Every structure is written in structure tokens, then in C-alpha cells.
């Protein structure tokens, strides 16, 4: 009996090697998964940084303080965002007083569309398409990831410390990060793959919200291809429209959108809210 006991102990000890491998594998996987998780301070840092970027956008292009129209944009945008993967963010939508055709999104959920873009749209589905594309940039944290914005990092120079700091070097460092974000939005543009991803996710948000899934494609086709004053910023910061349209068409084909029931346009409601302002 004693022999049996000791042999069992030895066997368990030896076999625990296998168990350790599994446990270590489990820990590695869990650790990798946990590393993708974001803590509350990361989200707060993202929102706080986004507010600074939004203030710079509004300092560059004036806000249209039309409550009824802004409320309309927010109803559409918040409904679209309900299908996104960021229930931790309160999204805010606003109109910019500019004739250029463009839209912007700051981290944390601040989304803007210009009067020029609104003029080009034919119905609510097209408006939803543009807002959904911008929601996708925020939800996928394109700027946050590119600038490596986290509440803390290993260098000790965290965004959190930048946001709450007030010494001149700290303010300068935060200003430089805001500059980089504004540079992405107004000059350099997102990475091409980020734009294509936002087109795909934006189209997916349209599908989930019951809008016409071809709305983004329809809107992009209307943007003048010849460089004009109203579209030069869009051309500089985005991939060529023909490439974007081709990729949206491929996405629609791969996902068998033709099987989906026809989406809504809400043209009358759009006219009623937008054309009267």
C-alpha cells in the first residue's frame, strides 16, 4: 500500500510537467488576451485626449450651433454607434461650418461632418454611411493605436500624466500629441488600411441599422474626382475613391449583401431636417 502511494506521488510529480505546460500555455493565452483589455484609465485618457483634439478641430472650423439639426445628427449617430463595439463611449456628433466635403472623428467619440458633405448627400442613409465610417475610426481606436495612447506606459511618460500635468514641458508634450492627431485628421490622413477597415465596418453598421448598404458607395461616387477646392483635403487624406469603392464592392460581394432585404433611405425625413437649415 505504501509502495502504491509513493509511486502515485512520483507519477503525479512527473506528469505535472505536462500539466505545467498546459498551465503555462493557458497563462500565455490569457495574458495575451488580458493585454488587449483596457482599463478604465485608458478609456478616460482616450476621452480626455479626444476632447483636446475636438477643441482643436472646432478651433479650426467653426461649429454650427443649430440645435435641431445637431439633435438629428446625434439621433442617427447614436443609433449607429449602438451596433459598435464601444459601449464605454458616449458618442457626440456635430456639424462644421465649412463648404469643404469632409468628416472627422476625434478619439473618445467626437464626430464631425461638414456642411459641404451634407450638401452632397441625397438621403439619410448616405448621412448614416459617413457617420458610420467615422464611428469606425473611433471604435477601432485608429488614432489611439497609432499614437500609442494609453493611460500609462513603461517610460513613465503616460498620457494620464500629460493630461493632468501643468508644467511647461508636460503641456508641450501633450500639445505635440494633439498636433500629431490633428495632423492625421487634416493633413496626413489615417493609414490606408485604417480607411479601408472603416469603410468595411461603416458598411456593416449600415446593414445592422437597416440602412441601404450601398449608401457609402453612392456617396463616394458623388464626390468630384477632379481636384477642387471643396475636395482637395479629402483627396489628400484618403485613399483614391476608386480603390475605396472597389473594396466596398468586394466586401459586399463576399458577404452576399444581395441576400439582405432592401435597406431604408429615409429621404423625406432627411430633406425635412437638412434642407430647411
Amino acid at each position, binding site marked *: 500500500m505504501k509502495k502504491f502511494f509513493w509511486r*502515485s506521488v512520483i*507519477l*503525479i510529480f512527473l*506528469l505535472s510537467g505536462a500539466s505545467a505546460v*498546459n498551465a503555462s500555455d*493557458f497563462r500565455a*493565452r490569457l495574458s495575451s488576451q*488580458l493585454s488587449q*483589455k483596457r482599463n*478604465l*484609465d485608458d478609456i*478616460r485618457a482616450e*476621452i*480626455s485626449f479626444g*476632447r483636446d483634439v*475636438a*477643441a*482643436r478641430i*472646432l*478651433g*479650426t472650423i467653426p*461649429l454650427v450651433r443649430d440645435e435641431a439639426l*445637431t*439633435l438629428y445628427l*446625434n*439621433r442617427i*449617430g*447614436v*443609433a449607429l454607434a*449602438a*451596433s*459598435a*463595439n*464601444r*459601449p*464605454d*463611449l*458616449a458618442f*457626440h456628433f*456635430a456639424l462644421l461650418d465649412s463648404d469643404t466635403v469632409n468628416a472627422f472623428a476625434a478619439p473618445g467619440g467626437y464626430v464631425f461632418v461638414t456642411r459641404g458633405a451634407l450638401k452632397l448627400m441625397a438621403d439619410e442613409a448616405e448621412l448614416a454611411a459617413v457617420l458610420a465610417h467615422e464611428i469606425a475610426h473611433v471604435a477601432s481606436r485608429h488614432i489611439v493605436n497609432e499614437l500609442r495612447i494609453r493611460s500609462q506606459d513603461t517610460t*513613465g511618460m*503616460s498620457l*494620464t*500624466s500629460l*493630461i*493632468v*500635468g*501643468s*508644467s511647461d514641458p508636460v503641456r508641450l508634450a501633450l*500639445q505635440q500629441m494633439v498636433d500629431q492627431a490633428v495632423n492625421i485628421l487634416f493633413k496626413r490622413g489615417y493609414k490606408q488600411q485604417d480607411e479601408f477597415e472603416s469603410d468595411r465596418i461603416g458598411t456593416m453598421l449600415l*446593414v445592422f*441599422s437597416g440602412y441601404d448598404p450601398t449608401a457609402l458607395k453612392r456617396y463616394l461616387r458623388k464626390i468630384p474626382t477632379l481636384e477642387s477646392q471643396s475636395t482637395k483635403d479629402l483627396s489628400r487624406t484618403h485613399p483614391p475613391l476608386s480603390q475605396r469603392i472597389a473594396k466596398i464592392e468586394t466586401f459586399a460581394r463576399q*458577404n*452576399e449583401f*444581395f441576400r*439582405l432585404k432592401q435597406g*431604408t433611405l429615409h429621404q423625406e*425625413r432627411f430633406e*425635412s431636417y437638412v434642407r*430647411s437649415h
Partner: protein
Amino acid sequence: MFKRFFIPQILVILALLLAGVPAISALADEVFVQSQRASILTAPRFGAPALVDVRQGERLVSEGKEKGWYKVSYANQHGWIFGFLVGPQAPEGVVSLLDKADTQQFAEGARRRASGFTTAAAARGLQDDRRRVSQKYQLDYDGVEWMEQISIRSEDALIFMTNQEEAH
């Protein structure tokens, strides 16, 4: 002797070890629905028929990943969900900086962790610091605050979006 004592022991211990592996994998590969509502589809494409609808916060067991889609099991059904709709942790509601207590907590937490970098400055509050961020560029925080005042509940927005009749 060997057959009598060792083989049964090895078999029992191996069985115990192997039984533990799927349980560990399932625990490691769970994902949670982040969108308000979503459908698990029979195939990884939007045109595929829906198998079952799931709501925000529901836990799914991930069985694999393919081109941005998760193969998942839920309520004894196996299907596909678009990766954008799920996340590694359960949603915990909207995070806001507008709430004073929330902002204060953020600043205090930051002070604790970044004490070598920031000290009394954080106590002055986030808003003032933001206003001082840049003297070179125009900043419109009043505009940001105006935007933030327009607050819509997602439930109300969803009702508005699906209502065909309502016009301005």
C-alpha cells in the same frame, strides 16, 4: 507489477489532466457581446441566415477566428459572429469625464501613479489644464461642451431611426 499498479494510475491521471484542458481553453477564449444587439450567423458572411440573436453583455465561447469573424458557441448552438461586435471583457457602461467625481477620481488615480511627473498641478483640475494646452492654436472647448450637452439615450435613438413616419 507494472501493469497492475502503474497503468491504471497513469490512465486516471491522464484522464484528469485531459479533462482539465478543454475547460481551461473555454475559459481563456470567452468573448462578450459589445453591441446592443447582434446575430450569430450560420456562416462568416452577413448574407448568411441568422441562427440566434444575442444581446449586449452576453458571454460567448470562442471556438476559432477567421478573417475577422469569430466561430462561437452559445446556448448549445455553433455559429459565427463579426469580430467587431465582441470584446474580451464584459461591457461596464459609458465612461464619462463630465461627471465631477469621475474626473476627480481620474486625476487622483493619475497623481498616485505619476507622482514623479505631476504633483500639485493635477489638483487644479483637468478643465483648466486643457484650456492651457495650447496658446499657439485656436481651441474651442465651449463648442465641445455644447456638443456634449446634446445627450441622446441609445434606446431613444434606435426608436427614432426605425420610425419611418417621423419628420421634422
